[in-house]
């Protein structure tokens, strides 16, 4: 309940206070009389409600207040009532271009959202209130002229015609929501969502994606910004033009204004994009993802390189070892060969000496032919046998004493060669003579 206000002052207390507490009870009220309340009217309803549900005033107030909130919300959809300010009421109808048509009809809460039904209703309501016939009847006399009624009619003329309404909506800057200033504090989504909701009204394509919130996916955010970057606007600026027949200048101006608007929107979207925390987050995530890939690749490469290096090292080591072995063996072979050569040389000398010592298996002075024949055979044997056999031969020769024994050794050797097929019997001219 509203408080009643009295301008009178309460008395000042002086003297001695009669009680201990600050509240002293003196006497009860005069006995009341029971009477019957008339059961009608909203206030009786409240009384009945309190009495029947044994609620106190404050309980009832609370319960009713919560009910009321709901009611008001429900009513909002249909109710059109706004206070009319004096400035608006005294407007000149000739200045209709600068008139806020929605405010005139009491729809400034709805603006471009107002349905045709709402506009019709609002117009009717305003006409009922401001019709000149009614004004004349009222004794107020303050607004005897019908200029505001003309304002109402003009507003209706514009808002009831879809083409004219679009033209007016296009330039209705009362419906614009200015982008928040840089200093504005608060959540990005809260600050910017109304801006885009207002811009979205110009879109030929409806519904317009919403700005969303921090939970929006990347796809949604991308769709949102793409939508506004590729914005297809029905906004026109004829309403701002002077009332002159079409001319070229006008058309240029129209195009210029349209382009200007497109640029403005682009700038706006850029700005929002720059401030959008989600974009930063998405970029961060993207970078992380890319980095993760790169790192993985690098790690792999490194691992491969390391492996390759290891392998190469091992190979080199092995090769070196092999080479060392080979070298050693080669050197060993060379030495052996030389030793063998030496041995062969020595054995040859032994062989030659053995046949020479035994006078080429003849008695007396051997003829040169004989010598040549014997030496030829020895050389043949020597050429056909390997050093080991030669050494064996040499050792056999060294133990053989006398020409015949030596000759027998040679013959055995030659026969062994013949048997082996390494030489033919005929080749040994002297031994098998």
């Amino acid at each position, binding site marked *: 309940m509203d408080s009643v206000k009295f301008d009178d002052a309460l008395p*000042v207390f002086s003297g001695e206070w009669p009680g201990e507490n600050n509240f002293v009870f003196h006497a009860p*009220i005069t006995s009341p009389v029971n009477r019957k309340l008339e059961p009608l009217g909203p206030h009786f309803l409240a009384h009945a409600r309190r009495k029947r549900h044994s609620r106190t005033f404050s309980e009832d107030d609370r319960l009713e207040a919560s009910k009321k909130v709901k009611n008001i919300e429900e009513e909002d959809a*249909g109710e059109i009532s706004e206070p009319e300010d004096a400035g608006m009421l005294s407007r000149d109808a000739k200045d209709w271009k600068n008139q806020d048509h929605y405010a005139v009809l009491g729809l400034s809460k709805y603006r471009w959202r107002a349905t045709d039904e709402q506009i019709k209703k609002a117009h009717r309501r305003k006409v009922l209130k401001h019709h000149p016939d009614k004004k004349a009847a009222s004794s107020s006399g303050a607004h005897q002229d019908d200029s505001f009624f003309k304002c109402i009619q003009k507003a209706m003329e514009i808002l009831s015609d879809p083409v004219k309404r679009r033209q007016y909506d296009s330039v209705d800057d009362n419906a614009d929501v200015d982008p928040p200033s840089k200093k504005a504090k608060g959540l990005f989504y809260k600050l910017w969502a109304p801006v885009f909701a207002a811009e979205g009204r110009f879109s030929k394509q409806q519904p317009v994606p919403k700005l969303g919130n921090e939970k929006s996916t990347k796809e949604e955010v991308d769709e949102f910004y793409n939508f506004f970057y590729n914005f297809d606007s029905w906004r026109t600026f004829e309403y701002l033009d002077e009332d002159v027949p079409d001319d070229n200048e006008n058309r240029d101006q129209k195009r210029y204004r349209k382009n200007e608007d497109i640029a403005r929107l682009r700038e706006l979207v850029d700005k929002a994009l720059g401030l959008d925390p989600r974009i930063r987050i998405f970029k961060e995530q993207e970078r992380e993802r890319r980095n993760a890939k790169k790192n993985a690749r690098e790690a792999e490469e490194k691992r491969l390189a390391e492996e390759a290096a290891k392998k190469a090292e091992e190979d080199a080591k092995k090769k070196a070892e092999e080479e060392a072995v080979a070298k050693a063996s080669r050197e060993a072979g060379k030495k052996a060969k030389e030793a063998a050569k030496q041995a062969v040389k020595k054995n040859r000398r032994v062989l030659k000496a053995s046949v020479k010592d035994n006078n080429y298996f003849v008695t007396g002075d051997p003829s040169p032919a004989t010598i040549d024949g014997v030496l030829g055979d020895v050389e043949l044997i020597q050429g056909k046998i390997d050093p080991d056999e030669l050494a064996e031969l040499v050792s056999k020769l060294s133990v053989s004493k006398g020409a015949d024994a030596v000759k027998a050794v040679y013959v055995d050797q030659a026969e062994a060669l013949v048997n082996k097929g390494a030489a033919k019997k005929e080749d040994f001219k002297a031994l098998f003579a």
Partner: protein
Amino acid sequence: MSDSSAEQEAGAVIGIAFGNTTSSIAYTSADGKAELIANEEGDRQIPTVLSYLDSDEFHGGEAKAQLVRNASNTVAYFRDYLGKKYSEIDPTNSHHSAHPIDADGVVSFKVVEKSGEEPSNISIGEITTRHLKRLRDSAADFLGKEVTGAVVTVPTDFTEAQREALVAAAKGANLQILQTIHEPIAEALAYAAKENMQPEDRTILVVDIGGTRSDASVVSARSGMYTILATAHDYETGGVQLDQVLVDHFAQEFIKKHKSDPRENPRALAKLKLESETVKRTLSIAVTASIGVDSLADGFDFHSSINRLRYEIRAQKVFDDIMKLAEQAVQKAELDLVEIDEVILAGGSSHTPKIAQRFRALFPETTPIHAPFTDAAALNPSELAARGAALQAALISEFDVEDIDQSTHPAVTVAPHLSKSIGVVVVGADGSEEFRALLPAQTAVPARRVAAFAAPAEGGDVVVKIVEGVSEIRKTIIEKKEEAVNGEGEVEDESEEEEEEEEEEIKTKHMKVDKLLAEALLKGVEKGQKIEVTIQAAADTSLNIAARIVGTQQGVRGVIAAP
């Protein structure tokens, strides 16, 4: 206010003012405004008349016109017979229409319903049913949907038996009576809805001057709750009597010219009555009116005119009766005329300028008289009851009948009403202690009031004295101007204005402290601060007092025990 969804599903609810002479129907529009519904003929005040001619039933204005040619088959002024035994009724008003007859104690009318057949007896209940049915159909046609429920206004002296008869009759017309409400309260409600503000505590005199009867009621409105303090009825004063004044006047003129009294011929009388009624209405708007009746009596045409002054002089007795009735109601309520805060004139005869003027003269200048002549913004007095009923109908349309019955049960409606005003002592303009009422007398408990007072100019400790106050009528002789000074500003103006005009003593109402109930001390109040005092009267008539300094935590609470 109205539950539109429920209305659409279950049909509409309307308010009906069922009068003895005329009835009105009204509905509450979606924006909470009560609007009268016109019937097929375009009448908003539909005569409570049914007439039978050539097997056809006529209703309203058409039926009323038949009073001239078909009076015996025309039933009028029957509302007051409803629910009464034949022995209880006063059939005076029906002398010139179908006369009520006694059918085993039940009031009935003998009319020829179908031409060529024997007259049949139609009981009062049946007549009422037919009347309500026509009203219901008119409303349904206008609203374009079925009418299922109605709130009907009844006079304050309507008995329970009459109420039951009305509900039963309505049931026959397939109309559920959601609630019957008293006419003066419906009329007060219509004005309360018009002002659309936080309701003020006022004592209202509602004078309903109808066609055949007048009723005056003193109503206390306390934060939108109404209690009837007193009622007075006069069954012999109303529009019919005013018509009779004109009938007599014109009859005398006719006699002067033609030496024949048209009142002796029933048809001539009926004609003259209908025309006189039109003249009476014209005189409420214009200062002169003319009458023209072709072949009034003995074949003579009658043409004449009358000005308002002559009419007013002739009707003085009727006006006197109305004023007497009003004063009687105020007396019954044990109040003085100056204690009436507002006067509402209702009923068709309240259009009469002289009646409004008489009330204007009777009450102090500051008391608003709601009648078309004294208040340009006044509502049409003929429509008040129907409007109030429609508002109430919209208000309760969403409730079940059971719910309504429970809420109108005496357990809920009977409440203790304060005998004396309860308020706080303040320092008046001249430094003396004055009483400011928070809970005026006749406020029903439980009740709660909150008031803000200023702190003393110099600050300091403040005492909140909760006291009972009584009103005191001070008589001021004009020359002694000083006595009026300590009253309210308005009173001063009044005495000044009237000083030159007439040397008369002026009565003004003052409240004086009668009994100290409790005191509360608020220490260290700074100047410029406000002190808020809340008085909450509980159902057991104990008072909870809370005083606090606005904007601080400092406050005092206490209880004044029940007597």
